[in-house]
């Protein structure tokens, strides 16, 4: 066994390309090794901006010998009755490169056939690994490019390929480059070719040449370097996973330098300073130890640091210019109030059929005012988006809301309203918090609901992985605001309200009923996946079936009540009983007809009717108040016994039509009362039977 090394040397690849190639190469090579019938040990993907590499340990020296049975023509076609081979047998042997004497007869399920045992000597790995090396180059990049004569496409131009099996070069070629044993070290710190004696020398040789091809090693070196530099400068690095991963694929060997900028720039909002350093320069921000106050310092991850002073002089100057620019943007922006900017929103198309962002914010404002009962919400909801047309947000889109808040504070809006401008974007992701302020929550809901109704109304509905307007996330945000935030949301009512907003602006949406029904489906789908993390799918189904599509909190109250009570042992028999009741009454037409006591002919039946009579009003009352745990508890304590006894002792489907109908009516009434809370027959667990 020997190690296999494949390295493709390239011009600097984008970070995302390296990550993608490192995912694909092991898969490509693994399947090529399998096809080549070579056993192997661990596969490790390696990569830096300038190289994509793969190490495979313990690759077999040779393929195992192959012995396989090849079936030919049927016996009758291949042999005379006396066993003499016919022409067909000879042809079959010849085709497989064997003598006709080797052809024998094999019995199969389908009859007897001429057969050959074909033996193939396994080839040495060196002779078949070329295909494996070629397979490693079949990476697909998000955007491949061509270069030179323009015949070949790859992530970036290919300069060299190392392909070593043990100490032997595996001959192959790609992109007009032949494989060899030469690699290049760090572009500046170790220029020149490095001859690798064997595959296993790779990591060591590159480390010596200032290249750390193993991502984990590079990351550790960067984090260690950052910590050391922070310590030297009595500062703390503001953690940023994006920057760690980004810088990781921008250097072959990370070096850290700590630079600084002038105190005067600290008058800019912290978020702007961080965005400038992060977005433009990939610098880590620095803050004071413990206090969290931003310091006029930064940490840059560089590829070469032979002369840190020179490097810092350059970086400091760049940052100063960038911060000056940001300050220019902020100063320009402040010459206009947020309200002054609103007309400009009419110049941004939200969606062709739904009009401009200006139209959208006016709809959202009206809806938010209606939802919150706060007239101020109408203007505030519009101001929430005014920073979209500011210079600074144009430069740093991720600062939307944050800068709106800052400008609002500077122009003297109340602290609460300024916060609303920032917080109406919450939650920004699955792990983000929801707004805590009621006004922010109302605007947040109105904004998303407007998008939902509009998109669904013009036929943009998420399907599979296609969800260009992130509608699923919008629904999830509304659900989370209703459950984790300060306000409940009546889904049906807000959808209806938003629909009205489009109508009054003269927008053409699909019919109201159709739109609402699609939205209802969307909401139910999201509720299932959101609640599915904590509750059983059957519990959710049972409650969704009873839920009107209105209050989100109401649905969750049902789910929580049912989840809690069904864990109790007695509840199982109740489920069984309701399944039976459902099965035998599902064809019973709902009827206002009164139950006729005189038709009851069994004690268990009378007992059930009595028990139901006694508790129905209380169940209805608890249900009406949304006290679902209480209502279900009443069902369990008051009705379980009588129902069980009823099903044990009473045969429902008697011949006497009047008695049977009366009995079914009783069961239907009980089922109907309980199914206002949840459709218990949808619960899984107890087996379904018919009565």
């Amino acid at each position, binding site marked *: 066994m020997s190690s296999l090394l494949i390295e493709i040397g390239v011009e600097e690849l984008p970070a995302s390309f390296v990550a993608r190639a490192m995912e694909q190469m092991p898969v490509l090579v693994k399947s090529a090794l399998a096809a080549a019938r070579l056993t192997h040990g661990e596969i490790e993907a390696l990569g830096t901006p300038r190289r994509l590499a793969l190490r495979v340990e313990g690759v077999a020296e040779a393929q195992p010998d192959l012995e396989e049975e090849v079936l030919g023509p049927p016996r009758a076609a291949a042999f005379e009755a006396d066993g003499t081979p016919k022409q067909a047998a000879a042809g079959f042997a010849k085709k497989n490169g064997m003598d006709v004497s080797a052809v024998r007869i094999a019995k199969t399920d389908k009859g007897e056939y001429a057969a050959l045992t074909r033996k193939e000597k396994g080839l040495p790995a060196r002779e078949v690994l070329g295909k494996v090396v070629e397979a490693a180059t079949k990476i697909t990049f998000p955007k491949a490019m061509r*270069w*030179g004569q*323009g015949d070949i496409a790859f992530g970036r*131009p290919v300069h060299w390929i190392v392909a070593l099996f043990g100490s032997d070069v595996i001959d192959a070629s790609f992109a007009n480059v032949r494989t060899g044993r030469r690699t290049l070290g760090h572009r500046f710190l170790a220029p020149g070719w490095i001859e690798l004696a064997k595959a296993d020398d790779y990591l060591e040789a590159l480390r010596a040449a200032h290249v750390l091809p193993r991502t984990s090693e590079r990351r550790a070196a960067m984090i260690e370097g950052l910590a050391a530099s922070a310590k030297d400068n009595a500062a703390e690095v503001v953690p940023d996973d994006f920057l760690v991963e980004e810088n990781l694929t*921008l250097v072959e060997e990370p070096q850290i330098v700590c630079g600084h900028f002038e105190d005067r720039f600290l008058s800019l909002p912290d978020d702007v300073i961080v965005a400038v350093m992060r977005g433009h320069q990939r610098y880590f921000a620095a803050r004071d130890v413990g206090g969290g106050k931003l310091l006029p310092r930064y940490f840059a991850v560089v590829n070469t640091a032979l002369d840190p002073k020179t490097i810092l002089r*350059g970086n400091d100057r760049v940052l100063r210019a960038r911060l000056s620019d940001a300050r220019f943007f902020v100063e320009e922006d402040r010459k206009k109030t947020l309200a002054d900017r609103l007309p400009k929103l009419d110049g941004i198309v939200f969606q062709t059929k739904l009009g401009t962002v200006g139209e959208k914010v006016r709809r959202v404002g009206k809806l938010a005012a209606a939802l919150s009962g706060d007239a101020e919400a109408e203007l505030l909801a519009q101001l929430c988006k005014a920073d979209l047309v500011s210079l600074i947000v144009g430069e740093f889109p991720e600062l939307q809301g944050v800068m709106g808040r800052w400008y609002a504070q500077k122009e003297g809006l109340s602290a609460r309203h300024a916060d609303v401008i920032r917080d109406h974007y919450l939650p920004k992701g699955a792990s983000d918090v929801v707004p805590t302020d009621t006004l922010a929550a109302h605007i947040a809901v109105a904004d998303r609901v407007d998008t939902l109704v509009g998109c669904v109304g013009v036929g943009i509905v998420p399907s599979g992985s296609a969800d260009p307007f992130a509608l699923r996330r919008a629904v999830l945000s509304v659900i989370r605001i209703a459950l984790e935030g300060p306000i409940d949301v009546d889904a049906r009512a807000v959808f209806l309200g938003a629909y009205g907003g489009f109508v009054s602006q003269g927008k053409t949406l699909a019919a109201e009923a159709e739109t609402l029904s699609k939205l209802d489906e969307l909401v139910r789908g999201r509720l299932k996946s959101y609640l599915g993390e904590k509750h059983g799918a059957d519990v959710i189904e049972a409650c969704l079936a009873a839920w009107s599509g209105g209050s989100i909190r109401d649905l969750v109250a049902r789910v929580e009540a049912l989840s809690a009570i069904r864990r109790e042992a007695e509840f199982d028999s109740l489920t069984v009983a309701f399944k039976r009741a459902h099965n035998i009454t599902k064809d019973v037409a709902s009827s206002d007809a009164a139950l006729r006591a005189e038709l009851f002919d069994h004690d268990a039946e009378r007992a059930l009717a009595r028990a139901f009579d006694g508790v129905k009003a209380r169940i209805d009352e608890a249900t009406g108040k949304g006290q679902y745990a209480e209502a279900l508890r009443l069902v369990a304590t008051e009705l379980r016994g009588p129902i069980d006894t009823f099903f044990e002792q009473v045969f429902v489907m008697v011949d006497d039509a009047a008695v049977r109908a009366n009995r079914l009516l009783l069961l239907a009434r009980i089922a109907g009362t309980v199914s206002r809370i949840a459709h218990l027959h949808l619960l899984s667990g107890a087996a379904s039977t018919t009565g």
Partner: protein
Amino acid sequence: MTFQELILSLQKFWADRGCLIVQPYNSEVGAGTFNPATFLRAIGPEPWNVAYVEPSRRPTDGRYGENPNRLQQFHQFQVILKPSPLEIQELYLDSLRALGTDPNKHDIRFIEDDWESPTLGAWGLGWQVWIDGLEISQFTYFQQVGGIDCKPISGELTYGLERIAMYLQDVDDVYELEWSKGIKYGEICKRQEWEWSTYNFERADVPLHLELFDRYEEQCRVLLGLSKEKGKGNVLVFESDDSLKRLVLPAYDCVIKCSHYFNVLDARGAISVTERQRYIARVRHIARAVCETYAAQREALGYPLLKAPVSAETATAEVAR
């Protein structure tokens, strides 16, 4: 190294490596890419190696001469190597060495930066080159120009001359750059920045520019004999199939004009975000017609530059004869 020494050094460096040195284009362009020596020559199979300075106008970048880093007119040094040689990065680094910059003492990086010009229907992949965190060059492998796939591929190097000069002279303010010994950049360009910023942002006549845009667009159509209707599959329809009857170079100037007037209107705030896309599409459309015509013309002419490259020595020998 003064600003003009920088230009002279780069010209010498690239001339020594076989590039033609041509001059800036005599119409308003936003970048060296607009110069026909890049934009049109990138089309088709003919080899082409060229270098030139391009004063480039970006009306929205104007800062009235008050920002030490932003200018509405700055200078690019543009190099086109077609086909792109495999050692193009090393050539570029050698050019920095020629400017007295030792790449080993700095942190030089090639950072992903794909380039796309929606108005020109062109795109490419490549990098920004950073030196100590400062972007000093753009490096692009053209993939498509005017909607036509490039083959071979041109490698485009664009040096930001002011930035590099500021770096080399270690000054923070562009206006403090020494253009030549004793004459500062600001003495030559500051007033110009103020006047053009004022013009672009405040004074440029909007109706006039709107009209100029329309008329040059129309002129371009006429020069190309480009029909307003498109054919099946969105193909462009020309009145004459003979591309040599069309005046493609004047037509291309119309594209440059439209693009520039659009930029001025943009700086004047006269174009809403919605209209922007439509204007861009209009320029892209005529740019595409120009590129298709140019490609057809070169073919009709038998690709004159596709002959074996004439080396300097043989050329001299021929002259001597």
